[in-house]
């Protein structure tokens, strides 16, 4: 793939330009960020900037022809904006994949945007294919519960999102609203990466929960009963229920893998946290979590770290029975 990318000798000077500051380049709006920094540092002149943006117009012309099957020379500004977004996102992803901001800028200067867009599209489609493979892994590890959000996401909504992104020429925009919500916020700069990240989170959660076998079902139904929620429509993250109780059980001195917690366990936890400094608090929670060697340990840690202020609060107010699920 790289052999069709052209680099001129003149652009090699960019690497020697001490003013060109790669730390100012952001991945979220990569192409504009590259151009802005290159222009600011005088690595490129305004004619080159105009040439790059004009090249986007040529790519837009090609996409308009594709979209209208050659039947229309013009499109509405909304459509043009969407198509430009797609061009910039795909070309940007290709340039990011080069892994070197200098090389990316040289590539941007010396190649047509349409060519970069097509290469980006190819990369994105490979990612979408990986998303399809990841979905198979999620299905194989799924938790057997009647939660409709969870099941419909796995059975329909993820594949619909993949298909939608593919049909829109790998659009940079994807909405995961209406889908089962993982414990970590899914944020990525492009649609295939966002879907991929969502799938990974779901997979980590499945793997973690599967280690608790029937305990996962028990905790879910207990939650639904306690909060009077229909098991089919409960808006709760199943993994988070399991993770919190599993960590609580270890803090109470039980074996890793236990989910059952009662009031006496809460008392043991209060005792454990009495007279310790705020710094030690986090350490104690995370060392308990470290004893649970299921799923993706980094993911577990990230989720639990984000929850530490709530645990602290629950301990201080002696309200762990509200944070954990007693059963």
């Amino acid at each position, binding site marked *: 793939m790289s052999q069709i990318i052209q680099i001129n000798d003149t652009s090699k000077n960019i690497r020697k330009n001490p003013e060109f500051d790669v730390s100012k380049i952001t991945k979220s709006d990569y192409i504009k960020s590259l151009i802005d920094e290159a222009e600011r540092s005088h690595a490129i002149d305004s004619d080159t900037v105009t040439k790059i943006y004009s090249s986007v*117009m040529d790519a837009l012309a090609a996409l308009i022809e594709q979209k209208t099957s050659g039947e229309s020379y013009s499109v509405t500004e909304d459509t043009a904006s969407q198509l430009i977004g797609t061009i910039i996102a795909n070309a940007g992803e290709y340039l990011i994949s080069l892994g070197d901001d200098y090389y990316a800028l040289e590539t941007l200067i010396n190649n047509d945007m349409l060519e970069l867009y097509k290469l980006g599209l190819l990369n994105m489609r490979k990612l979408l294919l990986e998303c399809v493979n990841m979905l198979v892994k999620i299905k194989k590890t799924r938790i057997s519960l009647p939660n409709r959000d969870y099941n419909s996401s796995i059975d329909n909504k993820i594949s619909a999102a993949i298909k939608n992104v593919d049909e829109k020429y790998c659009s940079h925009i994807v909405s995961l609203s209406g889908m089962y919500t993982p414990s970590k916020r899914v944020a990525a700069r492009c649609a295939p990466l966002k879907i991929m990240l969502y799938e990974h989170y779901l997979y980590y959660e499945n793997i973690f929960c599967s280690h608790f076998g029937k305990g996962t079902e028990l905790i879910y139904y207990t939650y639904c009963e306690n909060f009077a929620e229909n098991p089919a429509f409960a808006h709760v993250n199943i993994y988070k229920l399991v993770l919190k109780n599993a960590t609580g059980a270890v803090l109470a001195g039980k074996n890793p893998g236990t989910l059952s917690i009662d009031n006496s366990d809460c008392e043991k936890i209060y005792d454990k946290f009495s007279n310790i400094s705020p710094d030690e608090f986090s350490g104690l929670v995370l060392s308990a979590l470290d004893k649970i060697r299921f799923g993706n340990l980094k993911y577990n840690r990230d989720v639990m770290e984000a929850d530490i202020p709530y645990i602290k609060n629950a301990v201080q107010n002696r309200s762990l029975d509200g944070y954990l699920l007693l059963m």
Partner: protein
Amino acid sequence: MSQSYLILIKNAAVSSAREKNVSELMELNDTLIQHGMTITLDEAKELVLKREKSLSENGRVEIGLGALGKIAQIFAGSRYIQRNDFAYEIEQIADLFYFIKTEIKDTVSDIKLINSLFYLYENKCGGSFSLLSGYYTDKIIRYYNTGHNINNGNSDIMELVFEDDYLIEEDD
């Protein structure tokens, strides 16, 4: 993000594209002269500028000479347009064309719409632009926006212009 790119890109591309469009328009003279029409350099420059304004007012983006060239080529064959008015008429019709395209949400191809406008201009309006841009434009827009295009946008707008009965019935 995309909207700001659109502005950046349009600004970057507009000056270089303008010159190119003018020369493309001048090249059309070889064809237009067969119908006794020509476009002067000043008229070509004016047409390109007015086209930019029209696109902007109608919220559209067009790359290259686009529909303007086709309109000039087709309307050069009009029985009603005089040589001296040709550039002005083309400018008016192009503006009307972009307006209709946006109003009917791009449900018809450029060439079909241009042919339809030409048919109406020649056969129903007697060369009156005001009749074309008022009465018949309203008919076209309503036809496409109220479900008459039952073939999901694939219907030929020529069906409309040949179906005089439809136009008369609607009026009654």
